[in-house]
């Protein structure tokens, strides 16, 4: 009952005209940046952070949240039409989305994913509405030791779950925490790692780090890989799925929504993991499992539904525990801090308008996304013509202006460039950037809670083991480590580095790289089917686009 009352108050906040406007702006921008190769939600939120300073905190977070789950909608469009995933979680979308487009069914593929995402998002937000207040009530009893353990577990999970070298993931997280140390000690106010510099005494601002790593770093990455060349033409006809499509997909969508919801709550569990899990589960339940990898619309629907559901449920640990479960929400966490709002167990009591307003706005945003993505899909796909060479300078100038605007500091702009170069280098050397930014944001919390616990316990480390929550989290962490070791070394032999569509021969699915020029071309995928007239997409070559900013560089040399 309290949840319904709170939600009602949240809707009263969300329906204010200015908030409605910014939710609409957020989901539209989110769809666009999810659609456009070369920019992702992390970079966009980082770029927009400075602009939110002049807004009310509730409005700002509503907009940023809209960008996040909106980008999940947008990322599926190039995945289906071009086999270019807008982000890592859209990779699974390419397995069946692109073959469907090749079969002239791009419209229904886009339509069913929009509907599935809407249903998945709605179910997840309902779960968020019911579960979040309960968790917040329990979380109200946490102490400093518990907060330390929670933040540590969140960082551990995100670091372990990401792709690439785990050593480098942990190293990246530690490096992020070290960068966060620069500035004044939060307890003694002594300068740390400032080396006598007045500029460094103020610390390195999160906006400079985030915009640098993900905005400038992405520009550098695209310069290295070759700027996205754009698409010549796109043509889409019927968007709505047929009755037969709906019968095939309805239970897949419901199943995937539940899977996505629960996985999204786990730190590091959203996006890709939920897509993969629901795809695998749906294959077991499907009436046509042989179609998977060749245009299984139920597999496609399951993937996108779970992706969107997890992006909504990921707000649960952020809002109730103050633990951001992924890099995007880490930035939203940072945005809340910049507005002097601390997400966590007390948020529902101290700032109920923010807590419930954001949840209510997600219902509205989910509806707006469906409204935008069904009739306006043709308009959005035209944006695929925008070349990376045009986007890169625009990103650069907006980045420097935005970073400067935070503290009117050229030093911040210089730091932004430094972290852009650092972000690029980290990607070259196959470091995942997600743990870095999470370490940067969670590091100060970890340190503060650790030192507080030690002061309260008079130096007794045993206090950590006396807290039931800490013990439970410790057991979870050990289980997670054991699972990782067993899965990685015992059950899961590492396959060759192949990015392929299941069920299809490697040679057909691979992009072909010209060894002389390094340009990349893409063959049409399919088992000899004639090129369809509907949904025909002509891809200009070379095709290159930025991968997810948190992922290391792509090696597309195969065979």
């Amino acid at each position, binding site marked *: 009952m309290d949840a319904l009352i709170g939600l009602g108050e949240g809707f009263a906040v969300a329906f204010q005209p200015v908030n409605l406007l910014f939710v609409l702006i957020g989901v539209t921008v989110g769809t666009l940046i999810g659609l456009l190769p070369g920019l992702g939600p992390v970079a966009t939120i980082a770029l927009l952070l400075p602009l939110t300073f*002049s807004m009310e905190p509730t409005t700002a977070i509503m907009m940023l949240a809209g960008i996040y789950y909106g980008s999940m909608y947008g990322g599926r469009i190039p995945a289906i039409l071009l086999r270019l995933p807008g982000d890592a979680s859209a*990779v699974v979308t390419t397995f069946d989305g692109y073959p469907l487009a090749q079969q002239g069914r791009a419209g229904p593929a886009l339509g069913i994913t929009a509907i599935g995402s809407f249903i998945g998002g709605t179910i997840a937000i309902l779960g968020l509405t019911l579960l979040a207040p309960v968790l917040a009530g329990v979380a109200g009893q946490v102490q400093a030791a518990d907060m330390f353990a929670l933040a540590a577990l969140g960082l551990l999970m995100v670091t372990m779950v990401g792709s690439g070298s785990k050593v480098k993931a942990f*190293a990246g997280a530690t490096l992020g925490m070290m960068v966060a140390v620069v500035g004044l000690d939060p307890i003694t106010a*002594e300068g740390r790692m400032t080396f006598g510099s007045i500029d460094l005494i103020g610390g390195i601002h999160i906006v400079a780090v985030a915009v640098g790593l993900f905005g400038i770093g992405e520009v550098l990455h695209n310069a290295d890989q070759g700027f996205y060349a754009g698409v010549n033409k796109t043509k889409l006809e019927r968007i709505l799925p047929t009755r037969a499509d709906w019968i095939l997909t309805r239970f897949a969508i419901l199943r995937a929504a539940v899977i996505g919801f629960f996985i999204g709550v786990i730190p590091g569990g959203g996006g890709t993991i939920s*897509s993969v899990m629901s795809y695998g589960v749906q294959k077991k339940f499907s009436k046509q499992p042989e179609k998977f990898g060749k245009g299984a619309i139920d597999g496609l629907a399951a993937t996108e539904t779970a992706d969107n559901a997890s992006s909504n449920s990921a707000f649960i640990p952020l809002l109730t525990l103050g633990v951001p479960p992924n890099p995007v929400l880490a930035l939203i966490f940072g945005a809340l801090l910049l507005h002097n709002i601390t997400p966590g167990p007390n948020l529902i009591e101290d700032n109920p308008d923010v807590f419930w307003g954001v949840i209510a706005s997600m219902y509205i945003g989910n509806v707006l996304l469906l409204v935008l993505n069904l009739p306006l899909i043709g308009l959005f796909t035209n944006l695929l013509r925008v070349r990376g060479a045009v986007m*890169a300078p625009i990103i650069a100038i907006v980045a420097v202006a935005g970073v400067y*605007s935070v503290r009117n500091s050229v030093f911040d702009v210089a730091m932004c460039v430094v972290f852009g170069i650092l972000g690029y280098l980290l990607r070259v050397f196959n470091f995942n950037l997600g743990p870095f930014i999470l370490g940067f944001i969670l590091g100060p919390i970890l340190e503060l809670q650790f030192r507080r616990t030690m002061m309260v316990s008079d130096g007794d480390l045993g206090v950590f083991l006396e807290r039931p929550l800490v013990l439970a989290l410790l057991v979870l962490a050990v289980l997670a480590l054991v699972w990782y070791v067993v899965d990685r070394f015992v059950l899961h032999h590492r396959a060759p580095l192949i990015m392929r569509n299941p069920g299809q021969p490697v040679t057909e699915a691979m992009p072909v790289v010209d060894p002389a020029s390094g340009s990349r071309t893409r063959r049409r995928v399919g088992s000899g089917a004639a090129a369809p007239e509907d949904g025909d997409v002509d891809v200009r070559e070379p095709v290159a686009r930025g991968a997810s900013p948190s992922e290391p560089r792509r090696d597309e040399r195969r065979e």
Partner: protein
Amino acid sequence: MSSTDPHATTLTGTPADLDQYEGPPHRDDVGGRPDRFSWLLLAVPGALGVWDGLDLGLGTPARPGGGLWMVILGVLLLVFAVVVVIQGHLFEVPRRDGLRRLVFVAAGLIAFPVLYPLVGFVIAGFVMLLLISRFAAQESWKSALLVSVLAPVLVYAAFALGLGVNLKLL
């Protein structure tokens, strides 16, 4: 469970090679050149952290000093640096055309904070964007000049006039 069977699953029911679905695959063990540099990205801040942390003082268990956390992180970074060296990763060197683009983009980005205090936002932005769009992205002169002039002006208008940010015009 065969890793080449696309339908194979692991304990969790996920496809055999999760890296297939997580975007760019793990690249440490194929192709490219030996990575002899990335350990520096860890060792240098690690060493600085240990040095500065010890200088600041570790405090006592009941009152941990500001240096304790830095020393912990610094030691971890140094350990990771050693592990990275031992593991002997590989990395892909940027191709020549990619390097050329990188140099020009980096030059433009570095030029901006250097020029801004001297010539203001619009001119510093112009120089940055010209380096990026003309010399890095190889856009035509017409297109590059158009972007390099219009974008800083419009962004200045949006931030300075629209949001009231104190940007130096010239």
